[in-house]
């Protein structure tokens, strides 16, 4: 069966392999989001905290990570650390690399979100006798949350796409699955078009979920 330049039978043949890759992409993205958000939250809190050394460390972290290509970071984690005696598995390196990188961006997003909350909110919470962390958890973060959604959604999609880079450390996610297939069959057109559509589908599903979430939050919030 032929569809323009695409041989549908061939696509069906390679689909299982690509799907396997896509599952790995999703897995990586999921872990990167979870750990990246955790890292981002702590770094953001460090960067707005009153403790100078924490602010400095947070600044150093975001500066370095955002200033160096992820490709290089992955190389460093995979080969560099290993030469220093810390040998990590591909999957571990991939998750750490993506989380650490995503974390730097998420930290900036969360920090901006927190700073956008009126200072009076923190003062009101403190003056009620809340501790700093209670005020963060009960008052500031819930408000920042909604403003964070759109940039976080974008960042998550970026992470999903960046997961394509872990192919350099021999993780077989969707991108590398496509490359390997291409190597075996020398038929780039079907392979890359299919892989591209799969990425597009995944990112679109993601965007849609986030849009929904945003709209739901907007309603539940009384304004």
């Amino acid at each position, binding site marked *: 069966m032929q569809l323009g330049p695409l041989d549908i039978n061939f696509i069906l043949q390679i689909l299982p392999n690509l799907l396997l890759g896509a599952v790995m992409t999703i897995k990586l993205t999921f872990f990167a989001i979870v750990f990246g958000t955790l890292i981002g939250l702590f770094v953001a809190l460090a960067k707005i905290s009153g403790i100078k050394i924490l602010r400095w460390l947070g600044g150093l972290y975001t500066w370095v990570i955002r200033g160096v290509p992820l490709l290089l970071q992955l190389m460093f984690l995979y080969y560099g650390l290993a030469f220093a005696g810390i040998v990590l598995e591909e999957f571990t390196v991939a998750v750490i690399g993506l989380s650490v990188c995503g974390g730097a961006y998420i930290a900036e997003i969360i920090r901006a979100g927190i700073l956008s909350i009126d200072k009076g909110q923190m003062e009101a919470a403190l003056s009620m006798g*809340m501790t700093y962390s209670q005020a963060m958890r009960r008052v500031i973060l819930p408000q920042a949350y909604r403003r964070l959604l759109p940039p976080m959604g974008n960042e998550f999609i970026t992470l999903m796409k960046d997961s394509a880079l872990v192919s350099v450390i021999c993780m077989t996610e969707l991108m590398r699955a496509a490359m390997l297939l291409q190597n075996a069959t020398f038929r780039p057109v079907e392979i890359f078009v299919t892989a591209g559509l799969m990425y597009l589908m995944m990112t679109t599903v993601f965007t849609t979920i986030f849009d929904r979430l945003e709209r739901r939050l907007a309603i539940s*919030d009384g304004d």
Partner: protein
Amino acid sequence: MVKAENVRKSFGKLQVLKGVSLEVKQGEVVVIIGPSGSGKSTFLRCINHLESIDSGNVIFDGQPVGFKQLANGKVMPVKGKELCQLRSRIGMVFQRFNLFPHMTALGNVMEGPVTVLGKSKEEARHLAEELLAKVGLADKAESFPSQLSGGQQQRVAIARALAMKPKLMLFDEPTSALDPELVGEVLSVIKNLASEGMTMIIVTHEMGFAREVADRVVFMDEGKIIETGTPEQIFTTPRHPRTREFLSSVLRGYEKVPYPQVG
């Protein structure tokens, strides 16, 4: 109840409080007046340690707030838990309300008792409903702040502060962000509180209200207390020329547009 001794505070090079001392007794209502930038808000914020002080003492209920001055003149911080505990017994109402926009009016009032005092939701809800009723907003319990008028928001803020059963209430220009027609409802709530014997320190520009509710009026200027006295004395026979000057400029406005009748 609360005692400030020679409180000094600078922002960078600008000394905002230049040694302020004030004692407020149980049940007393003190109104602080003074020109803009004279340090009224800063002083209020020092009392519950929203600002740290550079030197001096603030003693609330026998306990030092935030910092205590040692014998050698150095100041030492008071620890986190202790500080929160202290703050929870001082209610503060801000000029810009600062209600939590993601909670209903009821949620705002319940928040303190539940989170800070660890009360059950049940108990907190009862208390909150009672307090909302007291400020005349029983029917607005489920409204979000964005659905309330400024005056209603400020009354919720007062209820929120009262929910902590504070021994002292601080008001920082509680009506200056309100449209004129909404000022009355908030002032009447504060007047009721006064009549119930709540200890209060109120910063306000509403001179008529000050006259009516204050046991004592304090005039601040340029980081110092210039004059203290009963409302009658301050408003009719101010001793200090700066007080006279300030009052005459303010009261010119005041006579033209009388503050709305409350109660």
